[in-house]
């Protein structure tokens, strides 16, 4: 039982971590809080469904196109909504409200084509389930975990080892100084939003075969991802993954050893506990005070 709970807790935790990564990335690069991440998961799931099932493209092509579409959506959101509001010098809370509005639009928009029936996402792998360390799970669940870890490392390398990543971090730390150094802060912020959306969309596409595709798919997961980001240290990429993982493990073990009724209670109680005792999260990220 323990190994099952551990592996499955890590899988769901990996998904939360992936979502938390998007939240942290946006905060780290633009100093803004977005609540649209969860619904971009939904967007990604529907885009993946369209490319993979409706258009019959290969899984790799579908994954790439889903990422590309979400990346474009992220840039459009930043340039078309967030930047416009920032140029009006609005208070940060209005940015948060704008992202909430966008999240509802994304939740509702797919209904125009797909309706509200849960859509079946065809199985991606020929083998429906595999056994790892004696734990049998859906193949896509393991794939989701692997992709989460790979994306985290890829993002780490991108942010720390590439010029553009360094420029993005510089633009986030001090936009004025960064611009004086010749960094295009507008571009870097746009790319950050694009990347965050792209990551969330990949998560959405991988979740499709596991849970089906429906309009509220990302809503709950998005909330959990946000909680994971705060626990890890809002704005810290490693903290996001760790926070997500902790949350996944806590709720899975709670359901396994105590009761599924209280798993959300415990998960969000931990979030509150962190906010009271250590608001900077496990990685001591000085973020909460700025919000």
């Amino acid at each position, binding site marked *: *039982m323990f190994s*099952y*709970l551990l592996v*499955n*807790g890590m899988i*769901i935790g990996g998904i939360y971590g992936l979502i938390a990564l998007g939240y942290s990335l946006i905060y780290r690069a633009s100093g803004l809080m977005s609540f649209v991440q969860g619904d971009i998961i939904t967007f990604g799931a529907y885009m993946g469904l369209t490319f993979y099932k409706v258009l019959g493209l290969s899984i790799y092509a579908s994954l790439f196109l889903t990422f590309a579409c979400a990346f474009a959506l992220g840039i459009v959101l930043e340039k078309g909504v967030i930047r416009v509001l920032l140029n009006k010098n609005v208070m940060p809370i209005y940015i948060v409200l704008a992202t909430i509005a966008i999240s509802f639009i994304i*939740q*509702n928009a797919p*209904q125009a084509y797909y*309706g*509200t*029936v*849960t*859509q*079946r996402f065809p*199985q991606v792998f020929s083998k*429906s*389930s595999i056994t790892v360390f004696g734990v*049998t*799970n*859906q193949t896509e669940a393991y794939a989701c975990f692997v992709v989460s870890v790979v994306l985290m490392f890829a993002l780490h390398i991108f942010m720390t080892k590439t010029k553009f990543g360094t420029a993005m971090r510089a633009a986030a730390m001090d936009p004025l100084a960064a611009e004086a150094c010749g960094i295009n802060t507008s571009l870097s912020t746009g790319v950050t939003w694009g990347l965050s959306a792209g990551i969330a969309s990949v998560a959405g596409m991988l*979740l499709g075969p*596991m*849970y*089906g595709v*429906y*309009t*509220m798919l990302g*809503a*709950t*997961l998005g909330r959990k991802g946000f909680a994971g980001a705060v626990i890890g240290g809002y704005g810290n990429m490693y903290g996001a993954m760790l926070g997500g993982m902790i949350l996944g493990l806590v*709720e*899975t*073990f*709670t*359901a*396994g*050893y105590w*009761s*599924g*009724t209280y*798993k*959300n209670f415990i998960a969000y109680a931990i979030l509150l506990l962190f906010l009271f005792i250590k608001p900077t999260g496990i990685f001591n990220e000085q973020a909460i005070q700025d919000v």
Partner: protein
Amino acid sequence: MLRCGCTGRGQATQIHILKGVRDMARKCMTVLLVLMLVVTMGSVAYAAPEFRIGTYLQLTGSNSVVGNSGRQGIDLAVKHINANGGFNGAIVVVTHYDTAGSTEEAVKVVQKMIANEAVDAVIGSINSNEVSAAIPYLNEAQIYNFGLGTSATWMQDTSRIWTFRASANNGRIAPQDVDLILKLGYKNVAIINGTDDTGKSTADAFEAACKEKGIAVTTRQQCDSEDTDFTGQILQILSTDPDCIFMSLIGTTFGPFVKQVRNMGYKGMIGCKECFSLEYQNVAGAENSNYVFYAYPYVGYTDIADCNIPIMSEYLKNFKAEFNELPAHEGAYRGWDTMMSMWEAAKIAGSNDKTALRDAMVKVKIAGLGGELDFTKGDREGYSQFYSFVLVDGSNYLIDDWLAAGGYDKYLKATGRNR
């Protein structure tokens, strides 16, 4: 203004003629107005009376497929009723209101219907939470109303004499589910239920029936209606090694639960509080949806040819002709059955007076899509007996037929289980 070189007498004649024309025009206008008035009054006097029904259904948002199916069933029934004389000669007019899945919105909509719309009757949501919240207002206002939800809770208050139901009551289905378990020779069962009203109340009724009929409940697990991962609950269930599992879940949780429990190695029979719809099967996967059993009035169909129940087959043909598709959810059956029950009450009452309609309900006994709709027991509920099905390879078999055909032995062989 008349400068045409005429004499003074000629001018006077022309003015006289003009006056005559004006008078004539005035008279014509007056006659025309009177005629229009008469025609309008006549049309008002001879307009067929209306019987106004308001509905509150979830028509948008996630899970709105159930509300829209209910609306289709109601609309199809209204068309049929109006083509056959309406309610005692009155044309049935239905106005649909959207609750968007919100209990608060359901209450607002119902209050609006009571205060401003002067409705003669109200048909309520398929979401039992909404019905529970709305019917106190309808009963207080003494509005003849029906609910489409299946939760046992909102019909328990016997003082709500204006509320009826022509769809299934999960509290009544639950004992029949236990009978199915007994029929399969099982001694125990594990339960998983949602924390929503329907999920919890059905599981309560099921557990009570298990106790009464000597079936042991090995464990009872709960989950939130928005949960996606059930690992903890499934492990607790599997650790008790139950003969079978009973699900009292809701909407989007059915498919993922069945998929996960199968992936985690459970191959046995799974009981379901309602028909395991095509939507659930799609998410769970066809191979995982085998051997799900349930008691329910009806099942979903992908092909009319699969249906061998004459009344249902006829309904499906009409539905297809009207909407060019088959019902996406059994809410369409509930909507039809509800309207047919109301129509029968109107025929019995011989009047569309709300008290007469309410009092006539106790005499309603008609063939519904899921069997006999019998309100004569006086408990304001239509269905009491339900069919029992088992889902194998995408087809719903009556469980007695399946057992008689050796289906259970095939199940044991296919799954390698001994029970």
